[in-house]
C-alpha cells in the first residue's frame, strides 16, 4: 500500500481552447486547489484531437488521459465536440476490443464557467489513476521486446 501512495501518476489533458482551457483558467482565477498531476495540452477544439495522440501519450509514459471540451451544443465551432464524441465512442470500443483499460481515459465536458468542475475532475481522475497504479500495458510491447521476439524467431 505504501508504494501505491507514493506513486504520482502522469496525466495528460487534451482540452479545447474555448471551454475547458478557459474553465481551467477560471479555477486558477478562483484559486481552487487541485492535484498537480494533470498537465494540459491546448487544442483549438476537441474535434481537432486525433485519438492516436492519446495512444502516443500512453506510449510515452502517461498513466491516464483526460479529454475535455465544450458541452454538447456549446461548441465554439458548432460541431467539433460532436465529432469528438462520436470518434471517442468508436475508438473506445476498439480499445475495449483489444483489451485496453479504457478507464484510464476520461472523457468530459467542462465549460468556461465550470472552474470547480475542472478541479473536481482533475482530483477524481488523479485518485482513480493512483489506485490503478502505473500504466505498463503498452510498455510490455515496446520495440525492444518485439525486436527480441523477432530475433528469436529468425535465429530459430
Amino acid at each position, binding site marked *: 500500500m505504501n508504494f501505491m501512495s507514493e506513486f504520482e501518476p502522469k496525466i495528460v489533458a487534451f482540452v479545447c481552447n474555448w471551454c475547458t482551457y478557459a474553465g481551467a483558467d477560471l479555477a486558477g*482565477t478562483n484559486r*481552487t486547489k487541485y492535484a498537480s498531476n494533470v498537465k494540459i495540452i491546448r487544442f*483549438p477544439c476537441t474535434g481537432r484531437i486525433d485519438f492516436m495522440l492519446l495512444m*502516443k501519450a500512453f506510449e510515452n509514459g502517461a498513466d491516464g488521459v483526460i479529454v475535455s471540451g465544450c458541452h454538447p451544443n*456549446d461548441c*465554439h465551432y458548432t*460541431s*467539433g465536440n460532436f465529432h469528438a464524441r462520436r470518434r471517442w465512442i468508436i475508438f473506445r470500443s476498439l480499445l475495449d476490443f483489444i483489451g485496453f483499460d479504457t478507464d484510464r481515459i476520461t472523457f468530459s465536458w467542462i465549460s468556461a464557467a465550470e472552474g470547480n468542475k475542472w478541479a473536481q475532475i482533475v482530483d477524481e481522475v488523479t485518485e482513480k489513476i493512483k489506485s490503478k497504479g502505473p500504466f505498463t500495458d503498452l510498455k510490455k510491447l515496446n520495440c525492444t521486446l518485439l525486436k527480441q521476439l523477432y530475433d528469436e524467431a529468425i535465429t530459430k
Partner: protein
Amino acid sequence: MARIGVFICHCGENISATVNVTQVAEAASKLPGVTYATDYKYMCSDPGQTMIIEAIKEHKLTGIVVGSCSPRMHEATFRKVAEKAGINSYLCEIANLREQVSWVHPKSDATTQKAIDIVRTLVQKVKQDSPLYPIKVPVTKTALIIGGGIAGIQAALDIANAGHQVIIIEKSPSIGGHMSQLSETFPTLDCSQCILTPRMVEVAQHPNITLHTFAEVESISGFVGNFDVNIKLKARSVDLSKCTGCGTCWQKCPSKKIPDEFNEGLSDRTAIYTPFPQAVPNKPVIDRANCIWFLKGKCGLCKKNCPTGAIDYEMQDEIINIKVGAIVTATGFDIKHTDFFPEYGYGQYRNVIDGLQFERLASASGPTGGEIRRPSDGKIPEKIVFIACAGSRDKAKGIEYCSKICCMYTAKHAMLYKHKKPEGKAYVFYMDIRAAGKNYDEFVRRAIEKDEVLYIRGRVSRIYEKNDKLIVKGIDTLLNAQPIEIEADMVVLATAVVANKDAELLAQKMHISYDKHHFFSEAHPKLRPVETNTAGIMLAGACQTAKDIPDTVSQASAAASKVLGLFSSDEMTREPIVAVVNRMAPPQFTTCTGCLLCMEVCPYNAIEREEIRDRRTGDLIKVAAKVNAGLCQGCGTCVAFCRNKSIDLQGFSNQQMLSEVIALLNQPF
C-alpha cells in the same frame, strides 16, 4: 538550428510565491535548442518587454517561450513583442504558469516540476512553429442588435450616430423592453417612459437604423466582420406599410379577456393589440393563439373595419437573410414570478405581487392610472409589506447570486407608496441593504428617514390569507430574532432577476459561452467585460448579469464603441490558424487522395473540391481537397478526420501536437 529564448515571469509574486522561477529558468536553459533563459518580475511591463526584445536581437533567437499568465491574457502582448524584435509573431508561445500552476497548487517541488514540464512542452512546440501571416478579410460595416430594450436602443443609437448601418431585432411587437414598464426610476424618481420614449422614437426615425419587431434570430453563421444571419419575421397579421395605427381594429375586437403582458397580467387586452400606447412601432399585432378568426375561422371584425385594408390573416412567417460585421446581444432578463414561492402562496394570493406588477400599479400609464390598488378588490392598501431577496441569494432556490437592483427598487416602491398614501405603512424585510452607486445610499436613507419606511432586518417564513388580509410571519434579527407578524393588505416580492427562458438556445446559436444560470459570459470578467469569446459578438445589459439602468446604458455604449472600433477600418486581420492541404511538386502534387471526408465534416463549408489537371492537355490528374482560408475558422476537425494526414492545421499541426505530447511526458535528462 533553433535558437529559443525562454522568459519566466514572476508576475509580481503571483507565480514566484509557489513556483521556484529561477529553477524553472535554469532547467529551461539546459533544454536542447534553448539558447537563452531568464526570469523577471514583470515580463509584461515595459522593461520586461524591452528585455525580451534585446535578448531576441542579442542572441539571434528564432523563437520565444514566455512562462507567464494564461495565453488568453497576454499572448497578444508577447506576440507583438516578438514582432517588434523582428521575428514572426507566431514564433512565440505562452506557458501558462499562473492560472494552471501557481494559483492552483501549493509551494512545492512538484509545483515547480509541473512548471518545468509545461515550459519544456512549449519549447518543443515553438521549435516546430513556422512563420504565419495574418489573413485580411473585408468588414461588413453593419451592426446587428439583438433586443430592443434600453441596452439595444443605446447601442443602436451610438453606432448609427457614428454613421454606420444598424439592424435591430426585437422579439416582442414593440421595442422598449422592461424599462418601458417601469413607473419611476431610482435614484432620481424621473419617469421612466419620459426618458425612454423619445429614444424609442429616435430609433424608429433614424435613417441608419432598420427596425424589425416581432422578429427572432433563426441562425447565425460566419465570423467577425462577416456574419451571415437568418432572421425570422413572425407573422404579425398586420401589414405595417398599410397600417396607420388608428386603433379601430382593437376597439372592435370581441376577444377582450386576454391577460395583458405589458401590465404583467393586471389588466386585459384584446386579441389584436398594440402592447402599450407609446409602442414603437405604434401598430397592432394579432395574437393568433387567442384570436377568434384563427381559433374558429370566423369573426373577421378587424379586417372588415380596417380603413386601410392592413389586416392580412394569410401572412406567413418570413425568413430574411442579412450580412453584418458585428453583433450586440442585448436580450435582457426575466424575473421569477410569484408562483415560484410556495411559502408565499405559489402565486395563488392575488395581493401578493412581484416588483414589475408593482411598477405597473404605480405607473401613470398602468391599469390603475398610477393609483396603488389591490389587484383583488381595487382597495387602496393601508399596509404594504415589501420582501427583498425573494429568491435571490438563496442556495435552496438555486439562485446564489444577488439580483443587484432589488434593494434600490424596493426602496423606490416603498417611497412611491408613501408619497401616494402618506398615512399608509410600508414595511421592508431585508437581508442587507446593498446600495452601492452614485446617490444610491442617500436614496435608501431618504426612504427610511424622510418617508418613514420601516425596515426590518430578517426574512419572511410564511404568508397566508386570513379575512381579506395577508398575514406575514417573519423575524427581526436585530431584535434577538424575535418573531414578527404583520397583517398586510398587500405584499410585494422583490423577486430574483433571472436569464431569459430562451437565453441558452440563443447562446448556442451564436456560439458564445454562458454560465450555469444562463447569463451570457464575457470574455474576461475584468478586462473584457463587453466582448464575448466569439470575436465580433458583444454583450450589453442584463443578459450578462443583473444590472440597473445606468450600468446597462454604460455597457451598451461600451459595446457600441467596440463595434465602432471594429468598423474603423475596411479590412480586418484574422488569425492565420487555418487548415491547409499539403502540396508538392508534380507528379504527386499532394498526398491528398480526394476522399473529401474533410468536406463533409467541415462546419464552415470551407473545403472545396479541387481538380488538378495537366496544364497542356487539360486531362484530370487528381482530385484533392482545398481549403478556403477566408472561410476556415481553424477548428481542425478535418485534420483529425484525414486518413493519411494530408491536411494540417497551422499553429496546431500534427507534428506540433505530437511533439508536445512527447515533450510533456519525457524528460530529456
